[in-house]
């Protein structure tokens, strides 16, 4: 599964990536995480608050660390 995490690289972005990686490992779902840190790129994806998460080009979350429940929902799709 290809997941994109968008954010300049503050501690919240790091926590978001860690959380996705940990939950994916736990559920045994192989994920490939791409980071977008350039703010102009972030904006062009229609994102205004970070960290944000995109799956298959669709914004599923923005403006904070996603909840574990949300991460599970994405991974189980």
């Amino acid at each position, binding site marked *: 599964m290809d997941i994109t995490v968008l954010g300049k690289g503050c501690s919240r972005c790091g926590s978001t990536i860690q959380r996705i990686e940990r939950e994916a490992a736990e559920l045994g779902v192989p994920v490939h995480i791409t980071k977008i840190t350039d703010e102009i790129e972030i904006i062009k994806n229609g994102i*205004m*608050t970070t960290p944000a998460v995109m799956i298959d080009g669709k*914004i599923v*979350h923005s403006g904070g660390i996603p*909840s574990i429940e949300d991460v599970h929902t994405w991974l189980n799709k």
Partner: protein
Amino acid sequence: MLELFTNFADWTAYSLFSLEKGTKLADAVHFFIEDTTKIFLLLALMIYIIGFGRSFVSPEKVRVWLTGKSRFTGYVLAALLGALTPFCSCSSVPLFIAFLSAGIPLGVTMAFLITSPLVNEVAVVLLGEALGWKFTFAYVGTGIGLGIMGGFITDALKLNKWVEPYVWDIKMPAPQNADEARGWGWREKYARSEAIDIIKRVWLYVLIGVGLGAGLHGYVPQEWFLEHAGADNLFAVPLAVLMGIPLYSNATGIIPVAEVLLNKGVPVGTILAFIMSIVAISLPELLILRKVLKPQMLIFFVVFLFLAFIGVGYSFNIIFGG
């Protein structure tokens, strides 16, 4: 209800640690325990309640609400919404571009960017606890007022020329917040995770701040403060603001210290000016904004806040000095 914390601190300091009441060490330990327990409980409770309300106001919604408003309405609304809507400082650039690309004037955008870090729920809760609600309202009102003023001046001086030119050409799709359409269960969870997340990020600052406060409370005599930062020292306000610039902390670390300063007789204007300077002028944040703002604009921004905080300090000292 607040005696609960005093009683708990009494018990810990005098019974559990068997410290002798009235000694400097006992005083400092008592202060530390009473303050940390009170602050953590209040913070958790208030962030949860406020977080629930805040799940209705996202920066994406603020952008929509501000689009197409007249300038005057824009400044006031932007500053008010800035007080209600926090954003992680690493979102400042996307947020800035998103506002401008929606046609929101630069001044209105600045009003939001000035007020948002100054007035936030953590600062309000801690100030209310430390300095009382009268000063907290004064602080919130001033924070919103400074946002409106900063925005108005930005447009009056036509500072658009100090925005990096490429910013005006960026086209962005209407920003989405996937969480907006969600129900009550999600809002409750959001509030809970917000409370946990904020406590996790600030607990160390609280301990350091209260520890510093406890040290000052127990060991530095009142005369020292009155001599150096009392109402008679006219330079105390600008010095406090100047000292606040390189000190980068969030409100959590500094407000417990402020409480001690107030008890030691430092005038409230000097204290609020110091807090505002620490919270609002942070060099890392300015460096992030450099990507969209020319150096002249950053200098204008710092000079405006510097002078404004000095003005706030002197006026509060006169108004509340009696």
